[in-house]
């Protein structure tokens, strides 16, 4: 009986393990290609062990193109991502508190409007927003990429709201009796308690901003201002790339921050997705 169970378990782990390895094979392949000599990348390309470890790809790739190094692109991505994330979390927290805890006329209507906005694809407003920002003279600046995040992100508002709802109302009432006004309750009671929800939102915001491609593609035209996503696309132009090793090296580096955040904050991400059902 016991032996049978061990066999069953072993089969289970072999199947699950090989399936998991198959799924992450493409990612391992990318990293391994980044360590192969360019002329060897597509020779027996499925093999994951470089015949000769070529770390110089990372140096070649870092030099970038048109005299701009990937250092510039990483810095640009960091600026856009950090400011947009801070903006979206602060604004979303305020808005979430307003919807979750304060009674005011018209709240229902605005809440429905927010839920509808959450389902509205960005592509619907992409063209009119572009024309608007073009009129403001904001093309080739970071404003169109950053400013909209300061008006709250519906998904984060919803996520933080759900979290606030789990905090007992008695806490607010007790604070009110102690002489706190709404702002005191918000800053002293609620904000410290909803840090996990703010963290989850910040991590998603980081992913989306770091990966954002369409926004920079539409709004930026000067290569010096490109974030990593756009630079990488240019760097990998199939008609001009010859240094495949360097291209894979920069691809690997570009997803490194995502990996680091994922492994450090895994718990928040899994909880966030499981409880709200949102894509990463």
């Amino acid at each position: 009986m016991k032996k049978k169970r061990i066999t069953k378990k072993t089969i289970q782990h072999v199947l699950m393990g090989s399936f998991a390895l198959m799924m992450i094979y493409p990612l391992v392949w990318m990293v391994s290609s980044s360590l192969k000599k360019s002329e060897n990348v597509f020779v027996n390309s499925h093999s994951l062990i470089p015949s000769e470890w070529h770390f110089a790809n990372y140096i070649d790739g870092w030099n970038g193109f048109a005299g701009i190094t990937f250092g510039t692109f990483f810095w640009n991505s960091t600026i856009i991502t950090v400011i947009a994330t801070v903006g979206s979390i602060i604004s979303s927290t305020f808005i979430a508190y307003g919807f979750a805890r304060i009674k005011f006329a018209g709240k229902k209507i605005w809440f429905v409007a927010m839920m509808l906005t959450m389902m509205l694809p960005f592509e619907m407003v992409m063209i009119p927003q572009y024309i608007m920002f073009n009129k403001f003279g904001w093309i080739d600046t970071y404003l169109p990429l950053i400013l909209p995040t300061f008006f709250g992100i519906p998904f984060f508002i919803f996520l933080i709201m759900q979290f606030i709802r789990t905090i007992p109302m008695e806490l607010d009432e007790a604070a009110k009796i102690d002489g706190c006004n709404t702002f005191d309750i918000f800053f002293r009671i609620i904000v410290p308690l909803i840090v996990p929800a703010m963290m989850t939102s910040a991590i998603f915001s980081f992913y989306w901003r770091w990966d954002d491609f369409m926004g920079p593609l539409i709004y930026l035209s000067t290569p010096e201002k490109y974030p990593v996503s756009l630079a990488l696309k240019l760097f990998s132009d199939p008609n001009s790339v010859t240094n495949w090793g360097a291209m894979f090296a920069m691809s690997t580096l570009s997803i490194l921050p995502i990996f680091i955040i994922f492994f450090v904050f895994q718990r928040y991400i899994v909880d966030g997705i499981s409880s709200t059902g949102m894509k990463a």
Partner: protein
Amino acid sequence: MKPVPPNKKLNTGNQNVTGYAFISPFLIGLFSLTLFPILYSLYLSFTDFDLMGTPNWIGLDNYQRMFTEDPTFWKSMKVTFFYAGVAVPIRLVFALLVALALNKVVEMVGLYRTLLYLPSVVGGSIAVSIMWRQLFGNDGAFNSILASIGLPTHSWLGDPDTAIWTLIVLYGWQFGSSMLIFLAGLRNIPKTFYEASSVDGAGPIRQFFIITIPLLTPVILFNTIMQVIQGFMAFTPSFVVTNGGPVNSTLLYVLYMYQRAFEYFDMGYASAMAWVMLVIIAIFTALIFKSSEHWVHYESDAK
């Protein structure tokens, strides 16, 4: 200690101001970045605006051109329906099967979950799209594997019949977040349901259809709606992996809209395309919701 003021009217008056103060960023964004642009887009769809001149009112010309004179529009519509219609069910079925398997595993479940979720973590990045292009290229790893086990290789990205499948596989590969949602749903099903049904003599397959699936239907509904919208609006994979080719076989709707707007500066036409898309998505969402009355079970109904 001050008692709470009994003057209710004064209190609510105060709260109105405070409430609107807290949600004011949302309201500003809603009007300036959503409502106004949507109405502006509707207006533009009836004009010939090319970004340089002033918009001229041309009535329904854009819509007429789209439906009667533009085979590329129909092609992109066909490609998008095929893509969303095949890729979304594949991702969801895959995600559910893997979640069911993971739910049975007791040890190392965290490790498997992490490994299987990784493709979704990096899935949105350009690096993955670029990698995919190389993976399925003529000398890529996929052909290399086929050759090494003696199977014929193929120009996956160069053949109009197979190029779209590379994008479908890319979409399916990122099943991780749907899987996590299903997994959370499975964990919420009370164990007693299964115990009771095995006493009644139900086997695992019967249990799957009479307990698991019905109780998961709300999660399935939510996943389906989010994924259908996401599938319809896909852009980056077709832009980076195939750039719409060969012979427009991967020209997803949003890519064609992007080309119309930002390569031909045909802003009026692209706005009309955006509106057609919105109507289609709205109809689909409504249909899914409507049909859900027949197949989604909420626990409160059962009581």
